[in-house]
Structures are given as C-alpha cells and as structure tokens.
C-alpha cells in the first residue's frame, strides 16, 4: 500500500527480518522432512526432538539404491518418463490449438473455448472408472502409456488457455509480413509465431510436467505393478508398508521434490507467469 514511498533504512531492515521469519515458518515442513531423512532412526524417535541431525546418516538414500521391494530411483525414472510423455503430448497439441483459437474466429470457437475451460475444473473421480475401462479395452492398462494419456488431459486445457493469450498479443502485422515474404499459414506459424511465443510454450511445458509429476490418482489406478508406478504412488505404497520408517519415507519425499526444486531455481519467472495468467485471465 505504501509501495511507492521509499522505506527508511531502519524500516527496510525490520521488514527484511520479519520476511525471513515468515519464510522460515512457512518452509519449516520442508526443512523438517529434509533433516528427518538425514537422521538415524533412533534420533528421529528421540525426545525432545533434535532440530538438526546430530549424526549425519545417508543410509536412507543409499539403502534404496540397492535393496527394498523396489527402489525409489526406478519409480523416479518411471515418473520422469510418464511426465515427459504427458508434456510432449500436451505441448504438441496445445500449441497449434491455442494459435487457432487466438487468431481465427471459426464456427464453434466459443464452444471449444468453453469446453477447455470446463475440463480444467473436472474432478479426477469422474474420469477414473471410465478411463479404467477404456485403457483396459485399449490394452494399455498397467503401462506408462495409460498414465501419460491421462496426465496429458490436465496439461492440454491449461496450456491452451495460457498460450492463447500469448498468440493473441503478437501483432498481426508480423504475420502479414511473413505472408508477403512467401510464407503460408502453416509455415508462418512454425517459423514466426512459435519462436515469438516461446516463453509461453515454456510455461506450458513446465506446468504440464509439474501436473504430471504430482499426479497420484491416475498413476495408482491405471498402473498395477509397483515397478512401473510413478514415484508418488511409490511413496503411498511405501507408507502403507513401512508407516513409521520415517527416515526412508522422508528420503523418498526429498528425492521427489528434487525436479520441482530444479525447475523452481532455474525457471522461476515462468512459474509466476503460469500461476497468474493461467488463473485470472482464462
């Protein structure tokens, strides 16, 4: 509210300290999971609890590579493949679709736009059983493909609604110039428009990936064999089997967060853009 006023040096320092306090408070669950994964099992059950690992223990990570009913790096790879596949499907389909919606006022445009908007609010519960039957009939049940196909249905509408705004904001003159230079509609789209809309395409790819990475319901319902399941289903399964083996469980959680953390560190500007433009302006 007083944004425009310059803060005095003292106020600046006070506000910085308060903000650091807020940061610690809100990110405490993450910190707690991380240090729990680095503690000995005995230290976890110690009372009062220790707020940093007194004895550093990497066993929870190491043990998973070798032993266990399945290892977390395998389910990590499963998740990665599924998410990558879903992202590719979503981007390949959404990029042209959003261009079509942004640029051409064809018959049925409004209806399609509405349909994409509605699919964004669907609960998974409505789709699970019919998809289950469908994937069984398509003979893709219990394969990565089933999860990929299902996960892409989250990324596609989101991407179309975001990218539509990017394409709409590109001046039509640019396209006209391309036509004068001998491009047709399709080559102009590929050579001129997609490169300009690249930041938008990045946002779509990142969010499609994140949605697929975070999915539990599809991966758990459409894939039966534990060794093919994504990492979220792996965690859930592990919780059922070793409910109180907190050092292993939190190690699992930390590994699951790694790609999210990397995306956040290297692509933060796309995250803010995706969260805001996707939500406020459909």
């Amino acid at each position: 509210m007083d944004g425009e006023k310059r803060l005095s040096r003292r106020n600046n320092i006070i506000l910085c300290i308060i903000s650091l306090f807020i940061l610690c408070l809100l990110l405490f669950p993450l910190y707690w999971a991380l240090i729990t994964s680095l503690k000995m099992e005995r230290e976890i059950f110690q009372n009062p609890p220790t707020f940093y690992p007194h004895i550093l223990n990497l066993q929870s990570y190491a043990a998973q590579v070798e032993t266990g009913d399945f290892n977390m790096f395998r389910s990590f790879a499963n998740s990665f493949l599924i998410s990558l596949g879903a992202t590719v499907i979503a981007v390949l389909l959404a990029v042209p679709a959003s261009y079509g919606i942004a640029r051409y006022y064809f018959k049925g445009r409004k209806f399609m736009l509405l349909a994409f908007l509605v699919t964004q609010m669907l609960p998974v519960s409505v789709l699970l059983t019919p998809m289950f039957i469908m994937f069984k009939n398509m003979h893709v049940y219990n394969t990565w493909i089933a999860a990929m196909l299902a996960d892409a249905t989250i990324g596609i509408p989101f991407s179309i609604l975001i990218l539509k705004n990017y394409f709409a904001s590109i001046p039509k003159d640019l396209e006209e110039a391309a036509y004068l230079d001998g491009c047709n509609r399709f080559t102009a789209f590929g050579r001129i428009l997609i490169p300009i809309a690249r930041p938008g395409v990045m946002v779509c790819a990142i969010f499609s990936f994140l949605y697929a990475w975070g999915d539990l319901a599809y991966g758990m319902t459409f894939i039966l064999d534990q060794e093919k399941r994504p990492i979220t289903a792996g965690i859930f399964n592990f919780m059922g089997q070793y409910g109180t083996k907190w050092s292993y469980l939190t190690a699992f959680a930390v590994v699951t967060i790694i790609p999210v953390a990397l995306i956040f560190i290297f692509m933060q500007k796309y995250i803010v853009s995706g969260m805001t433009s996707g939500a406020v302006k459909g």
Partner: protein
Amino acid sequence: MGKMKKLFRYENIGILFVFPAFLYMLIFVGYPIIRNIILSFQDVNAGNLVKGTKNFILFDNYMELFSDNVFRSSLSNTLRYTVLCLVFQFIIGFALALFFNRKFTLAKPIRGILLVPWMIPVTVTALMFKLLFATDIGVINYLLRSLHLIDTNVEWLTTPGTAMFALICANVWIGIPFNMILISTGLTTIPGELYESASIDGANKVQTFFRITLPLLKPTVESVLVLGFIYTFKVYDLVYVMTSGGPVNSTHMLSTYSYKLSFEMFKYSKGSAVANVLLLILLVVGMSYIKITTEGEEK
C-alpha cells in the same frame, strides 16, 4: 480493416489447428464424462465392468445415496473443509500479499521462494504433514507440550475431530502461495496515484484499504475465491494419503468416498453417482468462474 478481412478470410482454417487437441480431449475426457453418467444409471460391479451385460437400474444408485450416512457426511465434510480452507488461505494470502507489496530489499526473492509449497506434489505434502502431526515424534505435539498446552500427546490423525484440522492445515499451506501471488498481481494493477491522492485527502490506512484497495481488487478476489473453491472442493490426493477418509469415515470427502466405492468396494456405479454429484456442484460454481473469465474476452 479491409485488407485484414481479406487476409483472414478463411476463418475456418482455425479448426484445423484446434481439431487435434479437441479430438484428444473428446476421447479422453468428453467420452468418459458421458460414460460415467451412463455408469451411474447401471448396476456395474467387478464382474461386469469391462465385459458382460450391464443392467439399467436408473436412479437407484442416487436414491441409495440419500439414505447413505457416509455419503451425507462426505458432502458436509467437503463443504466444511472447503469453506474453512478458503477462509484461512485467503486471509493469510492476502496479508502476505500486502506485506510483500512493500518495497523492501528481500520482498521479491522471498515472495518467490514462498511459491514452492504450491509446486510440491500433494503426496509429498501429505507425507510431510503426517510427520508434523505424528503422535509420538510429531513436532506439533512437542511444541504444544513445551508450551504446556497439552499434557499427553494428541493423536491428531486418528481422532475424528482433529484429523480434519490436520487436513485443513495441510491444504491451507498449499493454498497460501496461490492466494498470495494472485492478489499480489492484482495489487500491482492499482495505480499509485490513487493512494497519493487518498493520503492528501487525509485518509488513514484502514480507510484506504476498504475504500480503494478492496473495491479495486474485486475481480481478483472473485476469481481467487472461485478457483480456490473448485481446487479445494475436488481435493483427492491430500485426503487419500493423509487419512484415507478415516478415522471411521470422519474425513471422507466426495472424491475419496467415490474412489473407495469404486476401487476398494468395487461398487463402480455407486462410485460414479457420487462423482457425478461432485461434478454437478463444481459445474454450478464453475459457471460463475467462466462468466468472470469470458467477460471482456469476447469483443
């Protein structure tokens, strides 16, 4: 304008671009929705799910829901959970947005880092909160004990009333960044001159907030609340991983109850009926969202 019209004469070529995505969604979303409605009017169990004849029993599944206590409590749980989550995440998110709107050195970097909880897979969030709320080793019980607020450890996740509280805490944690960033963006659209002239006119901070900030943020607030409602009302992963609807069905939501009916009790048709009730409520609320987003969109 004339030239433009000539160039974009073949408006319908746009369909070629949209068609693949539309077809995909039709197959993998449109058809399942219809199929789910049909399922809810049939009598389908594990025996006749994929192959075999399915008898139509029309509204029997829905009628059964009316007398089903778990369904009724799931419905009221979902509503209570959604409203409470919305209230807390909105107030905290709003407060943080106002706080980080001030131009101190760390404002932008820290506001950025605070988005992380929103990006984390919900399964992981559920696991982290299960750890925080654990009975013997949970840090929340430890803090309450240190403050002498409790004598013996609370069994948060296995006691009906407190399990819901733990779920709401976890969901609010996810929702805060979402509310904060949308309201932050909304705040940047309010012209600074308005605040200047308000302070010249002698308005105090409270007056400025209620006379300028809040009215001008109305569109943002509306979409934050409607979207928040939709995202929260269809909650599935968080509840399924943290409590699976327990203890004694006290935290079942429409989505988790539907899943339980279909994939644990193999009453696929009844599960579909519950899912359709959930869908219907979301659509009613969603219509207002669509109204907001399409206003000013079509010229």
